[in-house]
């Protein structure tokens, strides 16, 4: 086959071609890539999906949080720290050691009349409102200058700066003598800002003017208190003026003073227990039920599936309540068992349908017929051929069933139908947190955050798994 280069000018400048016959380099049947099994391939695919990978880390982290957490953070979730009720999350508070409380005499002026000499039309507010000594949570001692014409003084305390005479806050008490110009406040004093206001009275009416002082008491603790709270082991080791850290509540405390972090861990146990055990059980059941129906087909399949349809129609909440009653669990008692049973008894049809569909599809595949021709028995076909090929579907079902169960449990506990206090579960913690949502949002925020993150992570993981396993199910080319 020779050709003139006039015919093909593009060949003109090409020189030094090797026209010798080329020997075979490699077998045309060579496969260059390394062998990958189904799971290995799916794992590689999953790792490439960042969202799914992050979700996987979150799920693993959560598992560690639940299982290993209580070992690391050894705080009793039921222990009430009455001194730190509804604390927002913070670093551990420092407290100073002080002496035991002794009664304060107060300041009573000798050279000032107790009763006003004359009644004034306008009674001014006292001046020089000050703290008599350093304010601590043990006691706040304030003093002021006397007012001529005053027959007494009313003491108020507020948590914000008063805006008007009507906004002075909590009335702490009244002095009924013009020369008693001090007050000791021991009412639930916490280490926060307080605004004390003094109003003069003439014995009958209160004046319209007031004076305000901002006081931030230091957190103080006595040695005996510290000993009883377990913060120190021996009194002799400490002396007044030493600073000690109070109990650390990294996530704050709830309205009963219980440590949030410990409760979250305990709640995780409950939520995850139900969230994993229930789906596991009902998915297992669904696999056998659906596999059976799909494999044998015919009338058996029809009957089994009609029953499954019937179960789907049953109302879940109603059954929960029925089980609770049947198990004799009263209000306020923990309803873990009935919830678990209700979830399992009513949750399996979806899986059964899915597995059945998968089995029906697999049955039509050529390799099933081939195996039958080779003499395979039913159970061999099911175990060796059908079940391995449904594993992908099963795994994905499980991964989506878990967040659904967690959420159901949370919801039920939230409305009071599931786990009841004092047993913590994220749902019941949300229930409690809602009550103080505006003043102490952290009590609602953390359990809600945990529920949302867990459910989201499982769902994204399930998405990623579906993608990783499903595209493998599709044959290449």
């Amino acid at each position, binding site marked *: 086959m020779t050709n003139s280069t006039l015919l093909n000018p593009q060949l003109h400048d090409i020189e030094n071609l090797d026209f010798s016959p080329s020997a075979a380099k490699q*077998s045309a*049947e*060579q*496969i260059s*890539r390394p*062998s*990958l*099994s*189904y799971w290995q391939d799916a794992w590689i695919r999953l790792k490439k999906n960042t969202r799914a990978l992050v979700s996987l880390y979150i799920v693993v982290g959560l598992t560690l949080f639940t299982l290993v957490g209580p070992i690391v953070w050894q705080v009793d979730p039921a222990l009430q720290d009455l001194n730190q009720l509804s604390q927002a999350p913070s670093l551990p508070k420092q407290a100073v050691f002080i002496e035991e409380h002794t009664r304060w005499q107060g300041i009573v002026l000798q050279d000032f009349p107790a009763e006003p000499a004359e009644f004034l039309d306008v009674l001014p507010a006292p001046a020089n409102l000050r703290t008599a000594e350093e304010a601590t949570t043990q006691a706040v001692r304030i003093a002021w200058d006397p007012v001529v014409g005053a027959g007494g003084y009313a003491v108020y305390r507020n948590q914000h700066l008063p805006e008007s005479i009507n906004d002075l806050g909590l009335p702490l008490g009244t002095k009924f003598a013009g020369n008693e110009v001090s007050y000791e406040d021991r009412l639930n004093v916490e280490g926060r800002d307080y605004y004390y206001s003094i109003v003069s009275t003439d014995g009958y009416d209160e004046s319209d003017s007031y004076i305000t002082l901002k006081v931030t008491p230091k957190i103080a603790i006595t040695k005996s208190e510290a000993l009883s709270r377990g913060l120190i082991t021996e009194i002799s080791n400490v002396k007044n003026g030493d600073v000690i850290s109070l109990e650390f509540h990294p996530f704050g405390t709830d309205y009963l003073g219980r440590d949030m972090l410990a409760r979250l861990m305990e709640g995780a146990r409950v939520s995850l227990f139900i969230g994993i055990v229930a789906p596991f059980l009902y998915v297992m059941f669904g696999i056998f039920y659906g596999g059976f129906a799909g494999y044998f087909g015919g009338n058996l399949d029809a009957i089994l599936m009609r029953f499954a349809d019937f179960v789907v129609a049953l109302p879940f909440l109603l059954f929960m309540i029925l089980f609770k009653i049947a198990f004799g669990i009263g209000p306020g008692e923990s309803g873990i068992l009935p919830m678990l049973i209700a979830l399992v008894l009513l949750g399996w049809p979806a899986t059964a349908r899915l597995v059945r569909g998968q089995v029906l599809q697999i049955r*039509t*595949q*050529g*390799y099933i*017929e*081939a*195996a*039958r*021709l*080779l*003499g*395979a*028995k*039913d159970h*061999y076909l099911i175990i*060796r*051929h059908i079940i*391995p*090929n449904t*594993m992908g579907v099963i795994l994905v079902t499980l991964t989506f069933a878990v967040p659904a169960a967690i959420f159901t449990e949370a919801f039920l506990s939230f409305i009071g139908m599931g786990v009841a206090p004092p047993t913590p579960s994220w749902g019941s913690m949300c229930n409690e947190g809602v009550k103080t949502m505006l003043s102490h949002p952290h009590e609602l925020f953390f359990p809600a955050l945990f529920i949302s993150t867990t459910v989201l992570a499982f769902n994204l993981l399930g998405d990623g798994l579906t993608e990783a396993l499903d595209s*493998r*199910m599709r*044959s*290449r*080319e």
Partner: protein
Amino acid sequence: MLVKTENLKKHFQIGRGQNLHAVDGLSIEIAENEILGLVGESGSGKSTFGKTLIGLHPTTSGKAYYKGEELPQKFTAADHLKYSRELQMIFQDPYSSLNPRMTVLDIVGEGISIQGQHTPHQVKELVAEWLTKVGLNADHMSRYPHEFSGGQRQRIGIARAMIIEPRFVVCDEPISALDVSVQAQVINLLDELKNSMGLTMLFIAHDLSMVRYVSDRMAVMYLGTLVEMGPSDRVFFEPQHPYTKLLIESNPEPDPRLERARGFVPIQGEITSPVNVGAGCRFADRCPRVSEQCLRETPPITQIASDHVVSCHLFN
């Protein structure tokens, strides 16, 4: 005769009162070491026939014989095991006929593993031997089906069927899903194995030219019935039945001059449904030589030569 069927019928119940006459009375014979080609279009029932013959579907009526012995009407797993060393099948779709979760070793060795007469080591050796025989590498046995091309998968399927050394193999459209250049690879392999193992084959396909090339005798099916059967070359070059004629004339040849010279105008009309078929010739509504008798009576099978039969009233 190695394989024989007598008026084999396979009907499917689809819905209420709807009877799909997939195979409607097929009587054929296949001699030892012979390849019988079975052609037909969609709805002809050829695949169903092949599967019913080796017991993947229970028969509705009629009989099938292997080596003179009647085959069970419905095969149990024990029956399949008993006949697995005699009757085997090559499947059509290379993508769904191999379990994607099993290695090639497991797939090819499955037959002999189920038989249980070999140690795992022996199984491995046999698999290696057979992989080489079908043109793959022995070290492919640790790989998974998805790593292979269509043609290679089909060869794995062939190894799976052949490793237990059957006598009779039904090839159900083994090359339809493959590219042209690969089809010849698989055909040549089947031919080679047939000769070296002394196999008898039923070769089911819709590619007429390929069937003529591969088979000794050719049978043509239409809507579940046999319309013509005879030596491949004779049926191909001198078709007698009007339907066979239509098929042959419709079949394009890779020869432009020949195609230009053909004046063939194809018959309009399509295959009717094989559901609830009545009496009379199935092809009557499309046949250019139809007569009143064709509509009333089902044509009998007439022998027009020593090894050539036709089912048509024109030959009565």
